[in-house]
């Protein structure tokens, strides 16, 4: 296990270096010179230009620029927003909480509702199963921004159960404000997790080892829990992990739709106002968390299925 973890850590570090390079290279690849990109097309006084050149070491070769920038980024210095004249790190930190809460809330919905509906369908062939299969087939095809519009229309405007806009204040109000966005973000992923759970649990229930457990007089609920569901944990957690990782990026759409003050919405507005340092900083954070979540999922799969570590030499 220790060797496996070390190997995964090295892979994680390598992926982070490559992705940070791509994020940084955007500065040079963008049309025009880096200075114009950083300035976002604004005409700057000579003093500001000097500050920018100094800050980004624009008079140095490209690789040195990257090394300096990466060194700063690792220490938490992501530059200064040219629009707000504030540290990008602070701007990100003040908004990250909303996005983290939104993604965690959505992840919880995906896991609980997805597994519950999947199990229900697997264990109740017939009408219940058909209902779950049909409704998940529909929901799986609904992108978050459509889900957002529908949920706002039904639950905020029509039924007036939950607020449609803003972050809210305090814990309870905050949760109420996050509920519709979280469901919008989770809908499609929940449906796909439900489908995978259903298929996987069905498949496991037909396996010989489940027959053994039944032949030993283990109560059916325990057979389902300890054998069928437990053995389905790898495909379920892999899919759930991948969808949760992708939610980190999808959160931008949902935050925009619900007027939430999160990282994704900020990324969109930073792009619109050509605030390059902010775009770079948020991209770096999003990519890093995506890679991190995927690594956690892989390590989790190895912990759930002892046979996965055998794949080391293949």
């Amino acid at each position, binding site marked *: 296990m220790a060797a496996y973890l070390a190997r995964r850590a090295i892979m994680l570090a390598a992926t982070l270096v490559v992705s940070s390079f791509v994020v940084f290279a955007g500065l040079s690849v963008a049309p025009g010179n880096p200075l114009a990109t950083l300035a976002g097309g604004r005409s700057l006084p000579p003093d500001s230009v000097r500050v920018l050149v100094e800050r980004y070491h624009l008079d140095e070769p490209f690789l040195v620029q990257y090394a300096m920038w990466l060194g700063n980024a690792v220490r938490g210095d992501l530059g200064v927003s040219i629009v707000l004249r504030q540290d990008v790190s602070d701007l990100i930190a003040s908004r990250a909480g909303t996005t983290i809460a939104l993604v965690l809330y959505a992840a919880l919905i995906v896991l609980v509702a997805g597994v519950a509906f999947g199990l229900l369908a697997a264990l109740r062939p017939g009408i219940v199963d058909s209902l779950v299969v049909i409704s998940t087939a529909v929901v799986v095809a609904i992108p978050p921004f459509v889900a957002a519009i529908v949920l706002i229309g039904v639950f905020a405007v029509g039924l007036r159960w939950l607020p449609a806009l803003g972050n809210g204040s305090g814990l309870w109000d905050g949760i109420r404000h996050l509920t519709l966005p979280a469901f919008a973000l989770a809908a499609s992923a929940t449906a796909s997790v439900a489908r995978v759970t259903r298929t996987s649990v069905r498949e496991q229930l037909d*396996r*010989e*080892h489940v*027959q*053994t*457990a*039944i*032949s*030993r*007089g*283990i*109560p059916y609920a*325990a057979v389902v829990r*300890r*054998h069928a569901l*437990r*053995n389905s944990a*790898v495909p379920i957690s892999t899919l759930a992990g991948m969808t949760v990782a992708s939610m980190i990026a999808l959160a931008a759409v949902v935050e925009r739709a619900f007027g939430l003050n999160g990282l994704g919405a900020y990324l969109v507005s930073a792009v619109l106002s050509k605030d390059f340092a902010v775009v770079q900083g948020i991209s770096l954070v999003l990519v890093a968390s995506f890679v991190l979540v995927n690594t956690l999922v892989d390590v989790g799969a190895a912990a*759930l*299925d*002892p*046979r996965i570590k*055998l794949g080391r030499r293949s």
Partner: protein
Amino acid sequence: MTGVLDLNGLTVRLPGPDRPVLDDVSLSIAEGEALGLVGESGSGKSMTVRAIVRLLPAGAQVEGVVRVGGVEVGSLRGAALRELRAVVPVVFQDPRAHINPVRTIGDFLTEGLRTHRRLSRRSAEDRAVRLLDEVGVADGQRRLRQYPHELSGGLLQRVMIAAALLAEPRLLLADEPTTALDVTTQAEVMAAVDELRRERGLAMLFITHDLELAAAVCDRTAVMYAGRVMEVRASASLHEHPLHPYTAALAAARPSLERRADRLATIPGRPLSAFEAPDGCAFADRCAHIRERCREERPALRPLGDGQVACVRAEGLQVVFRD
């Protein structure tokens, strides 16, 4: 007579084909007795085991009576059925498939004890280690922490046998327990099963397609063909003096080490599944000694000599088989 296991007119129909997969099977096993159940693939051996612990596919219709220790299995529901299953363990053919691959050996061994006897993990594990030692698995404490893929097939089958014996059963159902193992491991595992069974005075229904193996470990042997019992007799006499033409053909088909043969003896035709069997004797189409009435009426299992046979010509044919 009430034995450990009594099957009376057991008939099983699966959804689909009209013919039953088990047709009027009657067998009984006395306390401490080992009964071998021999037959080709599809003859209904495994289905018999499944019918005893009620593990038949959904939609299967069962007629006849199955009694385990005098208790009628067909009427059991819920907890009572689980209690019965807990004390009638099945050793399956392929341990690799029949043991959950993502749980430890310890989980597998102690699951039954902890569910039915409500033993603590510690005391269940202590028992498991002792029994592992008895079935020839050394270093039990370490084995309990291992996963199935870390053990060889032979070791894994010993683990399955240990799990079966942990339930302290009076009847053991063994469904080709050595078929998936290589030949040397087969012999070792079989020897361990045989010894432990005799020590404990355990009754066993032993399923195999190996007539000689059945003769070696079982007191009596039953031969099945197309879902019907053809012959039941003491193992030694069944092997040496078969009464039924099918048994005789099976025994003849086994190549001998002492004699040189240019051609292996075979039974003409192909094995029938129960649902394909004709109205008369199921073996009629392949039998070298067929008469008109073999096709017309179905021979019943009737007492003859020291056993039972389902062949109308059994008495007359005995002379032929002696040669």
